[in-house]
């Protein structure tokens, strides 16, 4: 089977896809935005000029200037350092949340699409139930249930994405099950588990990768949304973009930059992942491009 010769055959597909991706202007822009976000997050302790948790009250709400590039917040803390450290939280929480969603969603989707029949029906009804709760509300409900904290937020956002991944994977698996190579493997006497894992899954993964990239954009926005609603990690020492916005909303009139910078940080990272996701989709399936 093609999958057996995976290194060579898939290098063709992926090398083609990558070269198309790198010739796609918007995708490159997306990668640059993501790079800014990731570098800022990883190197925050080195780049940040100040401790994000320590402020000088005398410097409360100073506008952007040369010593404080993005100004200072109510407690006189350096906004630039806080935005940088905020990137760490958004990156870690966003990535882990999407990873949780992928793990739960892939497990459900693989079992449902692989086994079919009653198991499929039951699992899909459960995802229907979860999908009936619109958008961020499911995550809000789960955080309200589990309590505040980083892990809880990751789980909440992850669980709210799981049904989307499950549906997507199940759909591809159902279509692939009837493909000739699957029939051939079945005829060769491969076990259902082997067909699922070695033959169907590798071919069903590409739409998941695209969806996961786009989900990272949504995750960053949703995590900030939870923070904004007061359901953030709840650690006053750790700056979270959404929480920073809530804290500053009262000073919109005098200190609009306290909304502008964390807000721009969220938008730039979300745009980055959205552009990359769209680029990946077109790179993997060039027919989609118009």
């Amino acid at each position, binding site marked *: 089977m093609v999958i057996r010769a995976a290194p060579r055959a898939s290098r063709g597909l992926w090398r083609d896809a990558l070269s198309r991706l790198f010739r796609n202007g918007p995708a490159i822009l997306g990668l640059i935005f993501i790079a800014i976000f990731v570098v800022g997050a990883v190197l925050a302790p080195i780049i940040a000029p100040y401790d994000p948790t320590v402020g000088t009250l005398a410097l409360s709400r100073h506008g952007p200037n040369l010593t404080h590039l993005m100004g200072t917040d109510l407690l006189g803390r350096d906004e630039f350092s806080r935005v940088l450290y905020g990137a760490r939280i958004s990156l870690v929480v966003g990535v882990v949340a999407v990873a949780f969603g992928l793990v739960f969603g892939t497990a459900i989707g693989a079992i449902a699409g692989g086994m079919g029949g009653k198991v499929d029906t039951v699992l899909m*009804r459960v995802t229907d139930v979860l999908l009936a709760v619109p958008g961020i509300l499911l995550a809000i*409900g789960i955080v309200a249930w589990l309590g505040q904290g980083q892990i809880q937020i990751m789980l909440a956002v992850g669980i709210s994405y799981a049904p989307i991944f499950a549906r997507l994977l199940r759909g591809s698996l159902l279509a692939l099950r009837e493909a000739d190579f699957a029939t051939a493997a079945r005829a060769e006497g491969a076990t259902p588990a082997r067909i699922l894992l070695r033959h169907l899954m590798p071919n069903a993964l590409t739409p998941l990768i695209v969806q996961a990239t786009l989900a990272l954009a949504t995750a960053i926005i949703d995590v900030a949304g939870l923070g904004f*609603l007061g359901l953030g990690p709840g650690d006053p020492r750790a700056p979270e973009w959404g929480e920073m916005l809530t804290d500053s909303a009262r000073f919109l009139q005098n200190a609009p930059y306290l909304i502008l910078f964390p807000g721009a940080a969220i938008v730039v990272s979300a745009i980055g992942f959205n552009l990359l996701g769209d680029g990946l989709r077109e790179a993997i399936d060039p027919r989609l491009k118009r």
Partner: protein
Amino acid sequence: MLRFIVRRILGAIPVLFGLSVILFLFLRLLPGDPAIAILGQHATPELVAQIHAALGLDKPMYVQYLNYMGQLLQGNFGSSFIDGRAVVDTFALRFPVTIELTIGALIFAVGLGIPLGRLAARHPNGWIDGLVTVLSLFGISIPIFVLGYTLVYIFGVELHWLPSFGPIDPRLNVQPVTHLPIIDAVLSGKPGNVVDAFAHLVLPAIALGSIPLAIVTRITRASVIDVSNEDYVRTARAKGLTNRRVDDRHIMRNAWLPVITVIGLQVGSLLAGAVLTETVFNWPGVGSWVVTSIQNHDYIVVQSLILIFATIFLVVNLVVDIGYAFLNPRIRYS
């Protein structure tokens, strides 16, 4: 057609049933005892047992669930721990505000999204298309609260063009009759009140409508481009019909269908987005009620509201599906 409708309605029932089970367990598995929450620190074992008996918490789980379902079916969603008011009563006061906001956002999204999508589709990959693509990218990448505060800052704080907070100026003393701010303003008989209510709706509707706008625009564009490549469109052009006639009669008639489905799906994102929008703009709707209930640990309210939102979402999509099947006979028989 009737069979299709019945099948779709029957299909929604297990989902609602499943959701009620999950929400019921969610409430029961919450850390903390509602009796302690009601009594506070002065709870004695006897009082706790009394409350448990009163709330039916001493019965087995399945009995509790059946009681809960029985109450739900009678429209009793329980009462708030905080003010003791029935969820249904407060909901009736607050929901109209959310409806007005949601409809405002939907009008903004659909009213602007469809023309923008059609415009972009006219010359795919042209400069207008590029501009529209960038706009919709922003639309899906900017959180409601960031856009909301940006709008408040620009149009409220700096330009003083539009009011930023609440659905209507409280100093106008408009009597609540329907609790829909604009309708109440109309009923008050003063044109000034109506203008004020509309002005208050503009910014929140834009903030809430930004994501649906982006999605409606994208889908309209894609759908119009799709249909434009059909043979019958080429035939229509070849036989010399005007562009306008081809657009209206041949392209849009068919391009509508996916757009309608997507509009139905947006109702969910609008309801969820209302939670954020009402918080930013201080609207006393259901969305901001979710937030205050979570802050007050008023879980019966949170649970009921999630169930109600999901029901609305399912019903709207059911209506959209049925409307879709009505418009497109191919769906009915599949």
